[in-house]
């Protein structure tokens, strides 16, 4: 008997599609695209670099001849680009998970079964919260690292085929040993940053009698609208915007200094140091307490 592990497993069983198969399918798709690009590109493709038409082999050669720092920047940009779809996918997966996890069990009345077993409501809700912010992102991250690793293997083969030194050009430049810890740190901070959003979805999921997603979206929007309408201020709207822009600053803003990787890490560390993050965690805790309270008193929908 191990309650905590069992509770996490239970969430995984129910949402294996989103947590497990989605990142795997995504990785498979990205690698397949790479293989297609490599094979067809080698045969037919021409790409223009500095006004010169190049085939794929020439392009690799062209990149290999650049200074090391430039090469590293290119390879790391591509690797970061490869991890981006995973972050976006897991964001949607955990949002839909969060908005459904305390609603669906009331709707299908299975809550009566879950609550007939000796597991407290707080343990259940916390296990679900850990699933959203820990298990799901960890699995997505693992899949994105595996994808990056396989992508680098493909690149190694391509480089080998063109007599380009593999280690120096593919592995030393991409430096996955420093890339992966940085991405892990950035993801962990992003999840803390998203905690209030997920907490809010949990609260609505535990409260809504129907259409929790609609309620979760409409309530903040209506409140923000009412605020700007009647108080002529935009505090709430600003808060919402800040929350969504935080992790996406990589895409929206170009920060000139340093590599893409260090920009991403710095962006995450800035979030971590901000008061907003900690205020958000307090809000998340309040939402969770509310969700636990609601689950304790609620029967079926």
């Amino acid at each position, binding site marked *: *008997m*191990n*309650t905590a*592990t*069992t*509770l996490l*497993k*239970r969430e995984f*069983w*129910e949402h294996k599609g989103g947590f497990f198969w989605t990142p795997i399918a995504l990785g498979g798709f990205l690698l397949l695209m790479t293989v297609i690009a490599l094979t067809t590109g080698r045969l037919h493709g021409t790409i223009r670099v500095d006004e010169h038409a190049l085939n794929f082999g020439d392009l690799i050669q062209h990149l290999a001849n650049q200074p090391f720092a430039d090469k590293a920047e290119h390879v790391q940009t591509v690797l970061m680009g490869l991890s981006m779809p995973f972050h976006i996918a897991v964001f949607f997966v955990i949002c839909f998970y969060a908005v459904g996890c305390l609603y669906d*069990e009331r709707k*299908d*009345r*299975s*809550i*009566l*079964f879950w*609550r*007939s*077993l*000796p*597991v*407290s409501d707080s343990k259940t809700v916390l296990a679900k919260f850990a699933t959203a912010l820990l298990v799901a992102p960890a699995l997505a991250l693992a899949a994105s690292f595996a994808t990056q690793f396989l992508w680098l293997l493909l690149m190694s083969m391509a480089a080998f085929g063109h007599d380009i030194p593999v280690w120096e050009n593919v592995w030393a430049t991409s430096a996955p040993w420093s890339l992966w810890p940085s991405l892990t740190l950035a993801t962990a901070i992003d999840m803390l940053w998203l905690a209030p959003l997920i907490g809010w979805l949990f609260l609505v999921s535990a409260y809504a009698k129907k259409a929790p997603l609609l309620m979760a979206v409409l309530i903040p929007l209506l409140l923000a609208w009412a605020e700007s309408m009647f108080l002529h201020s935009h505090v709430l709207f600003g808060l919402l915007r800040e929350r969504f822009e935080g992790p996406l600053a990589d895409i929206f803003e170009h920060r000139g200094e340093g590599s893409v990787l260090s920009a991403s890490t710095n962006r995450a560390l800035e979030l971590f140091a901000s008061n907003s993050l900690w205020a958000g965690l307090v809000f998340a805790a309040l939402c969770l307490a509310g969700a636990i309270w609601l689950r304790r*008193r609620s*029967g079926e929908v």
Partner: protein
Amino acid sequence: MNALVSARSLKKRYGGSEVLHGIDFDIQPGRIVGLIGPNGAGKTTTLKAILGLTGYEGELSVLGLNPQTQREELMQQVAFIADVAVLPRWLKVSQALDYVAGVHPHFRRAKAEDFLKRTSIKLNAKIGELSKGMVTQLHLALVLAIDAKLLVLDEPTLGLDILFRKAFYQTLLAEYLDENRSILITTHQVEEIQHLLSDLMFIKNGRLVLNSAMDAVTERYTEVLVKPELEAAARELSPLHERAVLGRKVFLFDGQSRESLAQLGELHVPSIADLFVATMGGLPEGVAA
């Protein structure tokens, strides 16, 4: 022996209206108690209070625990089947076993597996693929493998066909009951549990109108198939209820001596269903006759 469940002035209010008006009862070990009443009488509310699923006023002790504040401990020793529909459809049978084994300290997995082997339920099937009867068997397998002191059943056989209903109660009796454990059951299918029960509680509009051991019930209530010429005499003895069967009148008496009733006609032990109708005062309130 200490009562497993003990309620004193148990009250429940929803909004402004009171649905339980302070009921008192005890459930002793080794009993099978039927809690019978029309919809909205407070049956499910009473069960929910016992299971810590709802708040209440008054005193309630279940296995010496307070259901509101000690729910997690309580549910280690109390098993509950709501009705057949509550097992999640996406869960696999093997996962259901894994889950209960993972969270319940008194679950004997081998026992549940033995039980399932005697059914046609496959371990890798999803619950959504099982028939309603199979889901009930699975739920029963899970619950009977829990070493619980009190089993609470709320309409456990709702929507099942008669074969499964019979099998359900047979299994329940064979596998579950011993002198230390009790069952509290609510159902609409009163006839089927008639011979199972050791105690009977009738609840009406939030009040217990009958709370008695079955032996005492059969002592106390007598049904008489009265000879037509003696109907007026029978009415003199203030019967609880009167109904027509095949052209003759059947009277139900509360606490009349058998000797005097025997002169009126043929004596019967009333069925719980007839007793129920009589006690509830015929048709439910608001329903035209």
